């Protein structure tokens, strides 16, 4: 950007300190003058910004940022995936947690900065795709460009002389290329042909499919609803928000969007491998439901299995977990039944060793007649094998043993603070003591009863029911997302594997009435297929228009470029001198795909 000036202003020369007044006239130091650029107005800056945003370089940068930005979401607990982990993190990392909160790192994928990255990326994508689509349509409406003057400069070139007339040659070439599904036409003394438009079609389809994917995903997230419900055999469920155990939904979801249906869990069946290396893995794992659509729909029966949800309208009912619910009867000292229900216990391992709490909240009066609450810690081994006291050995109910530890007092449920159904708050309860003065706990088989001391009552383990956990999900846009994904794959494959190339065949009359045939091929991106294809075409054309004898050595019509060196590497290994990717040999030829002068 420097200009040399033969004459500078007199003041500048005079002020040159090193050389003094006389010497400065001799100085040939180039004088730096600021270039005289016009100032950009707002529109100018906007244009510049847009141009930069839609450039490949910025797209690259945004892609890099996107992958970098996704990393913290995989390493830091995310509130959308596991809220308890986030809460634990907040408790243990008192310094980092507020920092993360400020940066939105507990919900990275819905945070402002992550959204900014992918929104900018998609704006860049759209801003690039639209002009490119327009350009492509223009190419489709137009015709393949005519032959360059010097075909010898193209990556693949061949020539021979034939006795046929130039028109014959051109007709033959046109027919051959058309048969090979090139778009071909006569252009002056040559035939111009092009093939491989599906590459660009694939490229555009892929990028547009990404936009469709994004919109479908965002739509699904906004209108999504997902809830869990644990149901014991025999119980039912209606799809209203109050019945869910837990529920979360997208921002634009309203409870009116819930599909109205109800179902009853008739039976859960789980059978397991009893032998072999996969002992204990489920062979069947299914829930038999009777369901009805709407408030007045007819009952229908269906089976829900893991990986096979039940579709009711837009809702999908998934079977996600299962466990056992022992049926417990609690009687007070007088023999009145104060509690009789199936209590779901939560599994701890793959053999469904389970734990939970039986809570008798009302109706129990102790031996003194005082109203109390009873909490019983329950621990179930579906298959008890002597020797393995704390873990079940098989998931089925082969030999169930229920360990019960009762407590009495105040369970804390009347305080207004929510507590887990599966956990016992022991702060205001007392354990019972057995005859030896130890804490009372007992192991019961189905049908057995344990007595509470001093006439406090009894607990009976009647039988065991099974429960199943269902997840009800509504998420629109999944079909669009799938469609977008499939189009993306096929478009991507097309854009990477199909070669876009042009072939020209020129026939000019040479000396001695012979016609000089020249064929050349140019690929959009370099590949061995272009010379191979040219070779095939040349072979076929040569068969139709066979060569004429060579002329004398002083033939002026020799089309070889005199600047070509005689240096030819005579190896017939076509692969070893592959041209470099995406650079073109001749600046007059259309620049390679995506190459930019930035």
């Amino acid at each position, binding site marked *: 950007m420097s200009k040399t000036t033969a004459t500078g202003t007199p003041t500048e020369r005079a002020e040159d300190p090193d050389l003094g007044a006389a010497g400065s006239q001799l100085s040939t130091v180039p004088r730096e003058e600021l270039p005289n650029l016009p100032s950009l107005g707002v529109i100018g800056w906007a244009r510049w910004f847009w141009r930069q945003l839609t450039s490949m370089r910025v797209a690259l940068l945004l892609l890099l940022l996107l992958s970098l930005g996704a990393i913290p979401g995989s390493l830091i607990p995310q509130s959308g*995936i596991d809220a308890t982990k986030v809460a634990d993190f907040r408790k243990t990392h008192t310094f980092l947690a507020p920092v993360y909160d400020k940066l939105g790192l507990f919900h990275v994928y819905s945070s402002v900065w992550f959204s900014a990255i992918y929104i900018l990326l998609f704006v860049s994508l759209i801003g690039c795709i639209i002009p490119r689509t327009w350009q492509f349509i223009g190419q489709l409406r137009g015709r393949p460009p005519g032959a360059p003057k010097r075909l010898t400069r193209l990556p693949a070139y061949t020539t021979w002389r034939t006795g046929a007339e130039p028109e014959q040659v051109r007709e033959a070439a046109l027919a051959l290329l058309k048969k090979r599904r090139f778009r071909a036409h006569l252009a002056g003394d040559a035939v111009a042909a092009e093939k491989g438009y599906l590459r660009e079609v694939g490229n555009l389809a892929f990028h547009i499919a990404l936009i469709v994917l994004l919109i479908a995903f965002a739509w699904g997230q906004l209108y999504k609803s997902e809830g869990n419900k644990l149901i014991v055999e025999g119980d039912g469920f209606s799809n209203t928000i109050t019945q869910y155990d837990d529920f979360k939904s997208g921002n634009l979801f309203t409870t009116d969007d819930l599909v109205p249906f109800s179902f009853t869990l008739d039976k859960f069946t789980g059978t397991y491998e009893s032998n072999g290396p996969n002992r204990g893995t489920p062979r069947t794992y299914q829930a038999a439901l009777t369901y009805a659509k709407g408030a007045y729909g007819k009952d229908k029966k269906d089976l829900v299995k893991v990986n096979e949800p039940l579709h009711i309208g837009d809702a999908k009912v998934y079977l996600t977990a299962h466990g056992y619910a022992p049926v417990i009867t609690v009687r007070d000292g007088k023999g009145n039944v104060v509690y009789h229900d199936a209590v779901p216990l939560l599994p701890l391992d793959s053999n469904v060793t389970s734990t939970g709490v039986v809570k008798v909240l009302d109706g129990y009066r102790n031996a003194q007649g005082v109203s109390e609450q009873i909490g019983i810690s329950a621990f179930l081994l579906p298959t008890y094998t002597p020797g393995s006291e704390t873990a079940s050995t098989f998931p089925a109910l082969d030999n169930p043993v229920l360990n019960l530890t009762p407590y009495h007092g105040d369970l804390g449920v009347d305080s207004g603070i929510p507590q887990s159904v599966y956990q016992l708050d022991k702060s205001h309860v007392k354990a019972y003591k057995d005859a030896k003065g130890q804490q009372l706990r007992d192991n019961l088989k189905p049908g057995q009863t344990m007595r509470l001391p001093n006439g406090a009552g009894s607990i009976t383990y009647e039988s065991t029911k099974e429960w199943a956990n269902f997840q009800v999900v509504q998420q629109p846009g999944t079909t669009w997302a799938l469609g977008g994904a499939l189009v993306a794959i096929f478009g991507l494959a097309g854009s990477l594997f199909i070669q876009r190339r042009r072939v020209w065949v020129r026939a000019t009359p040479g000396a001695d009435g012979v016609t000089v045939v020249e064929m050349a091929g140019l690929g959009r991106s370099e590949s061995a297929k272009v010379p191979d294809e040219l070779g095939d075409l040349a072979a076929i054309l040569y068969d139709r228009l066979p060569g004429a004898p060579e002329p004398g050595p002083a033939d002026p019509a020799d089309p070889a470029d005199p600047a070509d060196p005689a240096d030819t590497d005579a190896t017939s290994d076509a692969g070893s001198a592959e041209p470099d990717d995406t650079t073109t040999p001749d600046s007059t030829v259309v620049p390679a795909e995506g190459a930019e002068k930035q």
Partner: protein
Amino acid sequence: MATNEHLANISNTLIYSAMGVYTLAFFTYIAEWTFGSRSRIGRTAAALTPEAKAKAAKAPSVTVQTAGGTAVLERPKVVVRSSAGARDVPDGPGAHGGDEKGDLYGRIAISLTVLAFLVHLGGVVARAASVERAPWGNMYEFNITFSTVAVAVYLGLLALKKNVRWLGLFLVTTVLLDLGIAVTVLYTASDQLVPALHSYWLYIHVSTAILCGAVFYVGAAGTLLYLFKDSYETKLENGGTPGRFATSFLERLPASSSLDKFSYRLNAAVFPLWTFTIIAGAIWAESAWGRYWGWDPKETWAFITWVAYACYLHARATAGWKGRKAAYLALIAFGCWLFNYYGVNIFVSGKHSYAGV
């Protein structure tokens, strides 16, 4: 029970035997390289002396190939030119450097690799038979299957007569490392799959992941060697003298542009399959977990790997990012793939944590 223990023992024996044969192949490859270092032909160096470069700058390299197979003399010859400015460097002769003894050892090494591959494959099949399911239910099985596929890719490329013999030593080293980690740190007796994994998607999603990983690995190996060869060629171009070891070793590798093209083709060819792997995973997640995308750590890192390879592909089409910069991106992308496998399975907990460790 007796059958599956028997098969499991057979599998372990076969895997250890395969490691033994791979070690033999490893030493034979080293012998090939050692004997090949006797060759003194400096093809790259000759092509990149300042005089040769001045000549090349004016005239792009030209090869002649014959059109059609038969009747060579009568067919028109197709003249292929590389673009001006590209280095006109011939491919190196391979590890054996043209030395006969080296070449012999090279062929022995390949035969040993084939034998090791067959034993290895037997070990994988025996493991699958002993657990009665696909041999990729935990990290141990994934590792042994992955290395089998990587060797299969190498042997497949050799069978297609591609110029990949130079890859032999690096491949065998990686396979030995991979199997070593598998049998020591990752080994588990046969494990049970959780119910959600009981789906035919296990065969589709994980098998494509293994194939993609193996091809990405071969591409990454090519990219790494490309970077070395490229600095070597640049040094020669600028009149420098690389060290003796660098000269001896890098001289025998293919030209940097061939290596670059090799890696690009592999990465680009398998990128659609990686896209399919992610989508297959999403479809499976939809039927197993109720949502097709939940930013689970494994899902996230598969996505990051995909974006990183997309970056690489974009870089190859951007002026100023071709060549070395794109190569670095490819290596970063493969690093993401490795973290996706080792890092996420071992260090991060999420829905994919049943991978065994």
